[in-house]
């Protein structure tokens, strides 16, 4: 159990900065997920917390103690690696007990804790096997057990599920969540998979290009993305974004020649401004005819529990999720209704969300559940 404080942490390799001043605070016992595309610096940040990477400037404190100059072993963190990093020449028991052995824990005590931990992760029957004789899922468990056994203050996960097949990933995800509830140690989990992020996080940190884009509860991040990057990164299929100028007279935006009404609270202040407007596919209403935005159906993805219709509006792609009752086929012309309470408005230049307090804080959940798919 520990609080983690990251203050103005920077990292550069030579002259190339990879992290530009990160400020974050993780509460004790929180499950934090750092989400971002590859190369955004999320792993670097994790490794800086672990002590595997130097901190170029700024501070990282664990439990109020600045750890910048401490060796990994002195920080009280345990880490689960993407490729598991099991010691290939040691048995499962040897892998699990290695940290304890290094720490000088006497053998009987060590064996007791190995047996205990093995029970938690369901490896009791495999203690004498070498990693090479285990399946992917079992290796993953050994990696977890190796972290758990140390009873660390902080768990660090570096994309631990990305080497597993889709089905196993779902199971392990649930297990990690359960394990966290049981151990309630502060956990920092790095991933590029938004489903993992949404399902696991108490606190979601979205990163891009060495900056923190947004921090918040996953649903908050989903419903009120702070930037066009977050808006397009979270949610599948991705949010539709289009650029428009807000007409001075009507205070409306335009898409495909048709006016798109904006929430009145925003509209007034945006007259004459260039904005980016976003709407999630699940909030876009498709009708076969009507006065809305004209679109042409490009192709349709059947997902079983729904369909995604991909359209073209003035040649630009636009997606919407529709029920099975609506009959459309590629080439059909349809009409889109973009309900103003679901519109997200961003400053076109900075990409930041505009005046979010004027938009409804909680989008009505009964309207349409977010459709997340496992890639």
């Amino acid at each position, binding site marked *: 159990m520990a609080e983690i404080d990251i203050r103005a942490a920077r990292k550069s390799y030579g002259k190339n900065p990879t992290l530009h001043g990160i400020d974050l605070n993780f509460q004790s016992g929180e499950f934090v997920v750092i989400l971002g595309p590859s190369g955004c610096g999320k792993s670097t940040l994790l*490794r800086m917390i*672990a*002590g*595997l990477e130097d901190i170029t400037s700024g501070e990282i404190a664990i439990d109020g103690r600045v750890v910048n100059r401490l*060796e*990994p*072993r002195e920080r009280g*963190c*345990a*880490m689960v*690696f*993407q*490729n*598991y*990093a*099991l*010691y*290939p*020449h040691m048995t499962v028991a040897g892998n699990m007990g*290695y*940290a304890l052995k*290094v*720490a000088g824990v006497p053998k009987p005590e060590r064996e007791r804790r190995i047996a205990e931990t093995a029970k938690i992760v369901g490896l009791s029957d495999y203690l004498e096997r070498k990693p090479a004789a285990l399946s992917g899922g079992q290796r993953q468990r050994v990696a977890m057990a*190796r972290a758990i056994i*140390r009873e660390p203050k902080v768990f660090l996960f570096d994309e631990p599920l990305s080497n597993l097949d889709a089905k196993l990933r779902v199971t392990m995800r649930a297990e990690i969540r359960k394990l966290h509830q049981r151990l309630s140690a502060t956990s920092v989990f790095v991933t590029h998979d938004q489903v993992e992020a949404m399902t696991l996080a108490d606190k979601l940190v979205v990163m891009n290009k060495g900056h923190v884009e947004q921090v918040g509860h996953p649903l908050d991040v989903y419903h009120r993305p702070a930037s066009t990057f977050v808006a397009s990164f979270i949610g599948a299929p991705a949010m539709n974004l289009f650029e428009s100028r807000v007409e001075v007279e009507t205070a409306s935006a335009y898409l495909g020649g048709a006016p798109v009404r904006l929430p009145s609270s925003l509209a007034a202040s945006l007259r004459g401004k260039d904005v980016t407007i976003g709407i999630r596919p699940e909030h876009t209403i498709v009708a076969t005819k009507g006065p809305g935005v004209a679109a042409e159906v490009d192709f349709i993805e059947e997902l079983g529990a729904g369909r995604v219709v991909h359209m073209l509006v003035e040649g630009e792609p636009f997606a919407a999720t529709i029920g099975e009752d609506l009959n459309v086929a590629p080439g059909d012309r349809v009409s889109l209704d973009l309900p103003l309470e679901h519109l997200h408005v961003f400053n076109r230049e900075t990409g930041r969300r505009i005046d979010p307090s004027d938009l409804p804080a909680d989008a009505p959940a009964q309207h349409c559940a977010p459709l997340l798919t496992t890639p």
Partner: protein
Amino acid sequence: MIQRTPYADAFTYFVMILGFILLIGPFLVIIAGATQTLQQINSVPFRFMPQGQFLENASAAWARADLARAIGNSFVMAGLITVGKVVLSAMTAFAIVYFRSPLRHFFFWAVFITLMLPLEVRVVPTYNVAADMFEPFRLLIAFVTGIEVSVEWNLLNSYAGLTLPLIATATGTFLYRQFFMTLPDELAEAARMDGSGPVRFFFEMLLPLSRTNMLALTTIMFVYGWNQYLWPLLMVTDPTYKTTMMSLSALVPSENATPDWNVTLAGTLIIMTPPLLVVALLQRWFVRGLVATEK
């Protein structure tokens, strides 16, 4: 599958048998000769069938070339060289790969350039160093501080002298370096997270993991050590330290009497046997080491 034509197959076997005659034939001649009597071996044509005289010839050679001592010395020499090379190259590679020391490029190149300095081209001054190990240090100290120190350590006619100059190894160091580079970064990171320091990591992770490499390196280095010729020839004058390669000269048949090649061949065969066994029995490792060290 590619079709097999009987002619092509027959030709293939013909080539392989020809290769057998060329490469293994000499061994058969040696074996046949080593088992013949003085009279048999000097008769023309040569008999390729082994006879029953091997033990007599071997014991004659054994006595004439003092093979017991020579073989003992060769084992000590090859053993020390092998152990030294395996240990030192692992240590150097560890220093080069797992630390960001500013000296690591220096270490690397210092080892690399030795490839261009074979013994033959630096034989006299190397001999001088062996004769007076501390001379470089004495001169350096005198040069830097002006103080004359008089310590001497003569390596001539000693196991240290037979082995120390041959232990530095670029190929071994590169083999280990190559191997360490293929290990995933996470291995060291996981060990660090588990609280292991560099020395513990070296002994508990790297050494156990490099067993395969070590065995491969051991086989080629043993053969290398056993087959050393020029260096022992120069530096050993005391027969106590002479090696098998040196005892070859004692096996040359005398010019005056009927040449007893049977004894010579028996002795040569004995001398060839240890490295031959290594290559034959541990061929998998030997070949692996050979191919790997050329990377």
